[in-house]
């Protein structure tokens, strides 16, 4: 068994993305993120979404019900306060990303039976995020479709990690995020 936590691609919004806005972020030096990373509104400013414990697992401990969630369109390497372009993730927003796994013999397959199953998110040190098939505890996303349906003719050479293992993709929604 091995871990398959390579973000061969970051998850991205593919449909139903909310409004694009420019929001204020805190000039705290700890607040740095890349374009494409998950961010949320906290005390009136945009803040990184990180695991309270280990900076890898995003679950309901880190993303409480009613969170106002965004995806960052711009990188921030903050030294001072400023504004950043973000796009709102609503309850109807569909994202697409690779299915990761912490305990498997290969990158996990994505059969249709996982549609409707809830998982937590694995967020690597790179800041990129994707569903973790081994983590159904305190889940924050629901699988809505699997690549056999939306990528029926995927190249056998695409989305491989450095060991040549091919990752499989899913589409998912965030649960419990605020639409207000």
């Amino acid at each position, binding site marked *: 068994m091995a871990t398959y936590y390579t973000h061969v691609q*970051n998850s*991205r919004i*593919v*449909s139903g993305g909310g409004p694009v806005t420019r929001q204020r972020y805190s000039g705290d030096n700890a607040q740095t993120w890349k374009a494409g990373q998950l961010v949320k509104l906290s005390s009136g400013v945009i803040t990184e979404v990180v695991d309270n414990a280990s900076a890898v697992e995003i679950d309901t401990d880190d993303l409480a019900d009613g969170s106002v969630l965004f995806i960052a*369109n711009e990188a921030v390497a903050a030294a001072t306060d400023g504004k950043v372009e973000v*796009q709102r993730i609503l309850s109807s927003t569909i994202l697409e990303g690779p299915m990761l796994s912490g305990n498997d013999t290969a990158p996990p397959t994505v059969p249709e039976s996982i549609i409707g199953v809830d998982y937590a998110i694995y967020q690597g040190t790179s800041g990129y995020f994707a569903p973790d098939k081994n983590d159904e505890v305190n889940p924050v996303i629901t699988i809505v479709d699997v690549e056999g349906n939306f990528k029926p*003719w995927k190249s056998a050479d695409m989305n491989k990690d450095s060991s040549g293992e091919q990752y499989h993709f899913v589409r998912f929604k965030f649960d419990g995020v605020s639409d207000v």
Partner: protein
Amino acid sequence: MALFTSTASAQSAVAHSGSDIRTQADWSQYINTYYDDLVDELAGEIDASQLAGLFREESQSEDVHVRKTKVRGHSVAGINEDGSAIPFLSWGQGWEHSHYVYPYRIGVKHTRHLEELENYGEISQEGMELKDSVSRTVYYALADAFNRCLGTAGAPFLCYDGMYLLDSARPNPVVGAPTWSNLESTSDIDEDALFQAQLNAQNTLAHNGDRMPLSIKKIYIPDDYDKEMWTLRSTAGTVGTAMNDANWARGRFEYETVAEFTSNIIIYTLGDPKSDSNGLQIKWAVRPEVKDVNFEDPDVIGKRIRLRWGLACDDPRAMFRGGALNSL
């Protein structure tokens, strides 16, 4: 010479935006900056015409188009004197099967802000990007029909008899008619394999067990096998021997290589694929069309491309034989 000597240093891949809308933030490095030129990455042009040539194209307005075949019984006349009872031909209903078409859509959208600032004309490329996306979709789907025609990983569709495009032990709708096969044994491309395929085509039986002799009109193989086939067709003596015997296959069959064949397969066509005898079909409900998407926000501008289509196969008997090839 140092000025003229460069050492390779690979670039890292670039992450795309995580957004479904194109905004100025995606392009911030390009807008009103020092870049002299913005060059589109090459993607090549997709041409599915060679693959499409193996399908008959038909219209179908329904999502599910239900078809029923008519069968004939054994049809040979016997000796029958004038004035005696005349025997009559029998007929009946055959199998029912359905052709399906599915809607495919993809869109693109951007903000007016980006349109105002972007000074490379990239926004105007969106229509071309959509068209390219659909060309690739059709191309992959048509290739998939052949690359999975043996059913080793399932297939995108089944023929009217419930079997794969190339299969053995195929049933016939008329009771008593034997099963049949259009699947050749796995082999190299050699004299024996081509002779056997031609013989098998000649010995084809119709749905009611009557003889239905066919002959190979053309052969389609992956690019990888071009050299093997060319050698077989060009050599006067039997390939790989001391050449006491003449080569039966020399110059006998026309062939084409198909770049999209990624499986080790050989396809023999037995007639004109555009004729009614070809069971393999592209079903068009709606050909690709582009329309504007009207968002609630007047400053989000988008369009989508849409097509409704599908692949289907009735009886492949009169058009396709083939099988797997040994790996090179």
